[in-house]
């Protein structure tokens, strides 16, 4: 599918230190198609004005362009109302909003707040600190040896009837996709409010609210799905959002400000204080258009074939440890690897010399890395514009890594 697609991403034609860019750090941020960049620059060059403010024509145009993206996001997610779509700075900001506003209003001493072992710091630390402040219990659902949520531990935590469950749709370290719909159905019966971190999920598969079961909140960032940095979305159930207090205070989120008290604007503006990143919201709209033009199903099928291909080869490399399931089902093309005796940073520098850009580090998942007993891993993550040739380059370089790092025999 992708020789044509690659032309849409000018950066993919770059040659760095004599080698064609082989960008395999898509889980950190995806590249941006020209259409998205053009939409942003066109906004600044032709339509720029602040939104929800002026009565003049240009401001109305900017506001219409901005608000039309809200409609696009609503359709993209299959949400009921635009009142449920809140623009934020990104996944991290979306989750902090919920932890602070919903968590602040609903968690009491002794309540249970639950997360899983595979959460990104963005979906771990806000809940951990909320629990600490409220003297609530913080529970972590553990994993099986195959990197998936341990059903026995799910039952254990379910039995505690947590007030909140925060769970990722797709792990940025192991590539595991979680069965969110069935989790949500079971936890809802225990009275739990469920937040889904879709930062990675949104980049790899179709995400429709109704397919995820009775969830309450969903968070994602534009920059991992071909959009710009600086903007993300929080989707929340309208009835809950109505009850929640505002997160930040200031312009746009108020209806009336008196000397001693104020009243809040209606949804979704109640949660959008200050001037938003208007151009990036426009860019998010263009990213959705771009993805929909290519079709989520085609993207998913292509990525699945890359996953199958890479997994089949990786498991054959002696001395290589794959920190993720070898079963290609319910997983995305995100591969964290470790090679015995080779530090992840050395491995990443070696791959960089081979022209392959991967991430080395803890991937903002200390609680998981700590359990693994590894300070860092190397992670290669693919997108639909990556090719099978790039996959083979990675596999070949990894296969040769042990001989590159071979120690002198005494």
């Amino acid at each position, binding site marked *: 599918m992708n020789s044509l697609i690659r032309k849409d991403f000018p950066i993919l034609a770059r040659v760095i230190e004599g080698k064609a860019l082989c960008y395999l750090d898509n889980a950190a941020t995806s590249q941006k198609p020209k259409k998205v960049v053009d939409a942003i620059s066109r906004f600044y060059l032709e339509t720029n004005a602040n939104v929800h403010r002026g009565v003049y024509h240009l401001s109305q145009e900017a506001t219409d362009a901005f608000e039309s993206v809200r409609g696009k996001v609503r359709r993209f997610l299959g949400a009921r109302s635009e009142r449920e779509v809140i623009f934020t700075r990104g996944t991290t900001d979306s989750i902090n909003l919920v932890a602070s506003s919903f968590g602040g209003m609903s968690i009491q001493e002794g309540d249970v707040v639950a997360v899983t072992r595979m959460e990104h710091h963005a979906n771990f630390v806000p809940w951990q600190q909320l629990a600490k402040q409220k003297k609530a219990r913080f529970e972590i659902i553990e994993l099986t040896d195959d990197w998936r949520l341990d059903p026995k531990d799910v039952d254990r935590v379910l039995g505690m009837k947590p007030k909140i469950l925060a769970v990722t749709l797709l792990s940025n370290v192991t590539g595991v996709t979680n069965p969110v719909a069935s989790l949500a159905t079971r936890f809802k019966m225990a009275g739990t409010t469920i937040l889904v971190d879709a930062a990675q999920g949104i980049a790899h598969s179709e995400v429709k609210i109704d397919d995820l079961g009775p969830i309450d909140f969903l968070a994602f960032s534009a920059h991992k799905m071909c959009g710009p940095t600086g903007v993300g979305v929080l989707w929340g159930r309208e009835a809950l959002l109505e009850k929640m207090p505002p997160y930040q205070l200031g312009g746009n989120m108020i209806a009336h400000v008196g000397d001693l008290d104020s009243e809040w604007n209606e949804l979704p503006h109640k949660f959008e204080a200050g001037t938003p990143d208007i151009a990036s919201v426009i860019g998010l709209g263009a990213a959705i258009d771009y993805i929909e033009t290519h079709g989520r199903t085609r993207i998913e099928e292509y990525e699945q074939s890359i996953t199958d291909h890479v997994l089949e080869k990786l498991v054959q490399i002696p001395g290589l440890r794959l920190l993720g399931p070898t079963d290609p089902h319910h997983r995305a093309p995100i591969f964290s690897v470790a090679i015995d005796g080779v530090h992840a*940073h*050395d491995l990443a520098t070696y791959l960089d010399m081979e022209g392959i850009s991967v991430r*080395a580090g803890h991937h903002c998942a200390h609680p998981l890395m700590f359990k693994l007993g590894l*300070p860092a891993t190397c992670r290669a993550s693919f997108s639909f514009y990556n090719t099978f040739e790039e996959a083979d380059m990675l596999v070949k370089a990894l296969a040769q890594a042990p001989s*590159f790092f071979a120690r002198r025999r005494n």
Partner: protein
Amino acid sequence: MNYRDVFGEILADHHESPRNWGVLPDCTRVEQGYNPLCGDKVSICLLLDRDSSGSERLARCTYEGEGCSICMASASIMSEMIQGKSIQELQGLIEAFREKMQGSDEVFLLPAEDSGEDITALYGVKRFPVRIKCALLPWTTLKKGLEAAHAK
């Protein structure tokens, strides 16, 4: 191609056979250095005393750690250079190394030629800008350790 072809024999050797490895019981100060981004860790034991003229010096230093080859080679090379040095000399060495790694002027080659001074082999790490902090970690930890020992 292998590691030695790129980084040179000196770095490979210090990584594979670290010098002054271990803990020093009864030392003046143990300083921990940690890079939260990549997980590199060093723990440096410093034993300070005074020489015959009464000025303070580092009588003995050992270290242990866990990290990438560049951080570990840097710690080993540093440990060989600093034994018995006065506090003033140490401050000079730390600053000079920092300047070499972060200063803008020279770009060094890898693998480094053997210049008789192992530390020159580290200068080539400048070719990999994101790795400079790996090479610096043992040195910034030493600096913190000396300051802390002094504050006592």
